[in-house]
């Protein structure tokens, strides 16, 4: 919707909450990559930065909630405006969760720094995190450009993240079976892999909000689910 409101203050309010979402998105993207890099390079300091940085993300979510509540009360948005306001609320909640997962990865990193390395897994986790970060960047681009096709593409790509998680899950099982001394590290690494897989789900939820915002309809539920570890023994 490129047309302007007759009440220009309404336009400014809507622009403000979207700008806040983009700012939050930028912080979350950085948090994902920093957390993955800290894990791979065993960088305690960087991990600590990620943990600290989550406070800013949470504060932004609070701010967005307040601004949105105020906008609903004062402007009673309808149609496309209403869908935008609803999407802002949901997207900020999803971003906040992704921020929490990044923080949790950083927390586990501080423990893992003092443990033995599990052959190549940190690099694999970083590749997985990079994929999720790209998906998030595309989802936010799709959001700001109102691009439902790009959003649909992001939803499809979650499949790959799920596949990566499946692979890691099996790998960690193997390592733990081989040598019980690996169990502690592998447990942490597995939680990290699961965190990244969950991030992918939240990014998918953001992309679904974009589809709803643009088309007014929820995307069909038939998206491929590839995380089959819940059935693995």
């Amino acid at each position: 919707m490129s047309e302007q409101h007759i009440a220009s203050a309404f336009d400014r309010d809507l622009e403000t909450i979207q700008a806040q979402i983009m700012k939050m998105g930028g912080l979350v993207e950085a948090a994902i990559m920093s957390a993955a890099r800290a894990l791979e390079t065993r960088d305690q300091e960087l991990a600590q930065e990620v943990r600290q940085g989550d406070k800013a993300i949470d504060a932004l979510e609070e701010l967005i909630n307040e601004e949105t509540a105020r906008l609903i009360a004062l402007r009673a948005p309808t149609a496309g405006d209403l869908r935008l306001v609803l999407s802002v609320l949901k997207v900020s909640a999803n971003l906040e969760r992704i921020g929490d997962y990044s923080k949790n990865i950083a927390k586990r990193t501080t423990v893992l720094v003092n443990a033995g390395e599990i052959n190549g897994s940190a690099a694999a986790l970083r590749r997985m995190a990079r994929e999720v970060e790209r998906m998030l960047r595309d989802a936010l681009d799709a959001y700001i450009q109102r691009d439902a096709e790009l959003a649909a593409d992001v939803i499809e790509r979650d499949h790959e993240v799920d596949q990566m998680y499946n692979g890691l899950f099996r790998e960690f099982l193997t390592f733990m079976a081989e040598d019980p001394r690996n169990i502690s590290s592998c447990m942490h690494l597995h939680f990290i892999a699961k965190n990244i897989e969950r991030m992918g789900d939240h990014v998918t939820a953001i992309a679904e909000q974009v589809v709803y915002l643009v088309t007014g309809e929820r995307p069909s539920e038939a998206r491929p689910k590839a995380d089959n570890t819940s059935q693995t023994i």
Partner: protein
Amino acid sequence: MNDMTRVERTVDSKAIKIAANDVQVHYGDTHAIKDVNVEIEDKTVTAFIGPSGCGKSTFLRCLNRMNDTIDICRVTGDILLDGEDIYDKRVDPVQLRAKVGMVFQKPNPFPKSIYDNVAYGPRIHGLAKNKAELDELVEKSLRRGAIWDEVKDRLDAPGTGLSGGQQQRLCIARAVATEPEVLLMDEPCSALDPIATAQVEELIDDLRKRYSVVIVTHSMQQAARVSQKTAFFHLGNLVEFGETGQIFTNPEDPRTESYITGRIG
């Protein structure tokens, strides 16, 4: 999940009360209503929205032939009430208006007592055999107008002495006294304060148990609050007609979107 949707939003009846087919209205050379086709359901509140001059009031006035009183106004096409053409020569407009009642923007009680305001219609249409029946009808109508408790002790007082909100509810009571089947309301709350507006809106929701209500309103929020169906008029065209929730969350036509979101369109 479907059974958890709010019941008051569901349309109770799918029966068509009024069907308009290819309706055109001309005021002299001005083409005020263009090719309007719409089906108004029974026991449903239908809201007409649109910018000033879009034709919504003109179209509303077609539904009980109020436009007959304007010499230069010409209405073509069919408007069927329960399948009968209301513009048929055999239809008496006065009888029609008893069946299709109307409430106006400004409360306009007769300069008579509260009682006589309501009793007027039933008297001229011979709806009561005696005083007792008339008393009963007046009370019932005032109750349906949600104003009985406020006026029952002063039925002989002049209707014009009531507050604006009370006068409007008196006018609604007067309109329902002839047992209409359809109630047309042209901006019924625009002269009322928020409390009186809320009372009239509550009343409208109650009235739809018995009648088909059609309301013209400039307040989009009012349309959203009281109606189950919404029709958007623009430049004499019926642009979009649909379920109110759909119109206000995901309208199909960009002109509807522009109008309800307050954009220039």
